[in-house]
């Protein structure tokens, strides 16, 4: 995983709660056998029409790399393709009042930051996007803070371990293999339950 660095980006608004992973990337794209190139399937059913007015197709949000949405973003299927699609499309962070558990985990494994803000802070971002063209936020992971150009900012929680992995770009399999002795000891005490 690449190290997560601070960045400033345009924020695209998706004003819906419960955006599920079937919407983020529909089933036909799950037939892929590689991780790359899934951006073409992002929000496909909402976008696949002539003159799509869907948010990421509007000229002012074309360059957006932060998505803001409502509660329970990423619910439903465990498909990591949803995260690969968002990242491939160019998104580096998603802001919402809450995220589904599996989606949230999948994001962290791929360097896509989930920024959980309070509902009124998310409201403030939706309002600010309406008021300002090309509304941007600066994301500072170390400080756990998002800041705009108009003096507004908010802090967000993140698990310390997840933060360290993101900032250092750690390969968590390599990290786990450092505990080989502990795993082997556990296995020695717990034989395979299945007849061989």
């Amino acid at each position: 995983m690449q190290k997560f660095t601070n960045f400033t980006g345009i924020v695209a608004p998706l004003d819906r709660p419960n955006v599920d992973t079937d919407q983020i990337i529909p089933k036909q794209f799950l037939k892929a056998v590689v991780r790359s190139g899934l951006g073409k399937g992002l929000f496909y059913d909402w976008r696949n029409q002539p003159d799509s007015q869907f948010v990421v197709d509007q000229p002012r949000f074309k360059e957006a790399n932060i998505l803001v949405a409502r509660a329970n973003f990423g619910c439903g299927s465990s498909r990591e393709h949803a995260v690969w699609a968002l990242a491939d499309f160019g998104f580096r962070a998603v802001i919402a009042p809450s995220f589904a558990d599996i989606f949230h985990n999948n994001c962290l494994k791929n360097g896509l930051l989930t920024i959980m803000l309070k509902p009124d802070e998310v409201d403030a971002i939706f309002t600010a996007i309406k008021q300002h063209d090309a509304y941007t936020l600066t994301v500072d992971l170390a400080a756990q803070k998002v800041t705009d150009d108009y003096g507004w900012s908010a802090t967000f929680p993140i698990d310390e371990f997840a933060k360290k992995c993101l900032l250092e770009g750690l390969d968590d399999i390599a990290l786990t293999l450092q505990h080989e002795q502990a795993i082997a000891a556990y296995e020695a005490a717990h034989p395979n339950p299945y007849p061989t």
Partner: protein
Amino acid sequence: MAANTLFEKIWNSHVVRESPDQPALIYIDLHLVHEVTSPQAFEGLAKAGRKVRRPDRTFGTQDHNVPTTDRSRPIADPDSRVQIEMMRKNCRDFGIKLFDLGDREQGIVHVIGPELGLSQPGMTIVCGDSHTATHGALGALAFGIGTSEVEHVLATQCLWQARPRTMEIRVDGELRPGVTAKDLILGIIGRITTDGGTGYVIEYRGSAIAALSMEERMTVSNMSIEGGARAGMIAVDEKTIEYLRGRRYVPQGKDFDRAAERWLTFRTDEGARFDHSISFDAASFAPHVTWGTNPGMVAEVTGTVPDPSSFAEPTQRRAAELALEYMALRPGTPIQEIPIDRVFIGSCTNGRLSDLEAAAAVVKGRKVAPRVRALVVPGSQQVKAEAEKRQLDRIFIEAGFEWRESGCSMCLGMNPDILRPGERCASTSNRNFEGRQGKGGRTHLVSPAMAAAAAIAGHFVDAREWVR
């Protein structure tokens, strides 16, 4: 000794390493793998020159992509074919037992795990699929993971996990006649909402849960994710033991008795505490039908499509408006006046023998309405064989249903079984998201009996009046 919950007993006995500044490293007893969420994980392993640490604790099946029609013919869709062939190659290369197309044991991963006795009480079980919670019905801690975590488990047989919070959902009393496990879980999701369980492991408890059969418990636990919880679980009792006895991968003879004694300890101790508790009266549930585009949008079959203006919270109101627009429904329409075009009976939620029996009991001697196309897709080859032994296939076929081979099928439409745009389906599956069963398709989630009755009537009906 401290009083522990079922979850705590399993969690505590699987911690490989724990330190205050990071999540726990948890050992995984059983890893189930299917063709859709694993190719990139195997690719990652191969690239890094890693092996599968415990092929003896890893089992594969082909289910999401597979055709449910004649299997002697080649798979028409080239992308599906590639994925299925890649699964074969990966399992062969990495030494993993695969229940392949054409095998007697092939089926939906969450149907075959319990059916083969792979899923056992007290285990930690993962799969790259959100409905892994199903296996929690056997007193296991089972949850869905993404592909990166699949790769991690393949390589290390472990996972880094922050300790989830615990929630008990108690259902006491008796379900009213004709109210099924599916109605119960749809009703629970309607009440706790689709993110009520986020961050929690749910244990379903109480006399109404204890009264359920093992297959009914699987239906309940299966849909935990639709309430936001990664895992659902149910205590082990004599029903669990009897369900497991004699299955292929459980110990046999005296070894089984010893295992059973240990398994029976996997229940929450008297006085153990949950982080959150909710309780419901079993008699308060009726047959349910979803009207919207998430599984929390449910109504009783005797009710009506709600008016979005009845939702106080603006975001929820807007969500209801969008849902009704997608579903082409008007507020106030009686549920029983909604006509349907398609019926799907199957899936990891409701594709087991007792589900097919419940549907067949409604269908027997009746005919599918002329406007309806109806499909029965058994959850596994073993379910199919058992159903055929009982001649359920003949009941369905004579009524005008199509009787298919096992797989995920129209639950997610990765194979040719999909809705056409605008078609409306009564489905025993678990998700009614926009486009889930085919772009522009409209899904209403119901129980097998309700789906069967709707197939006959051509619109939703109260299945309680149809069961003889």
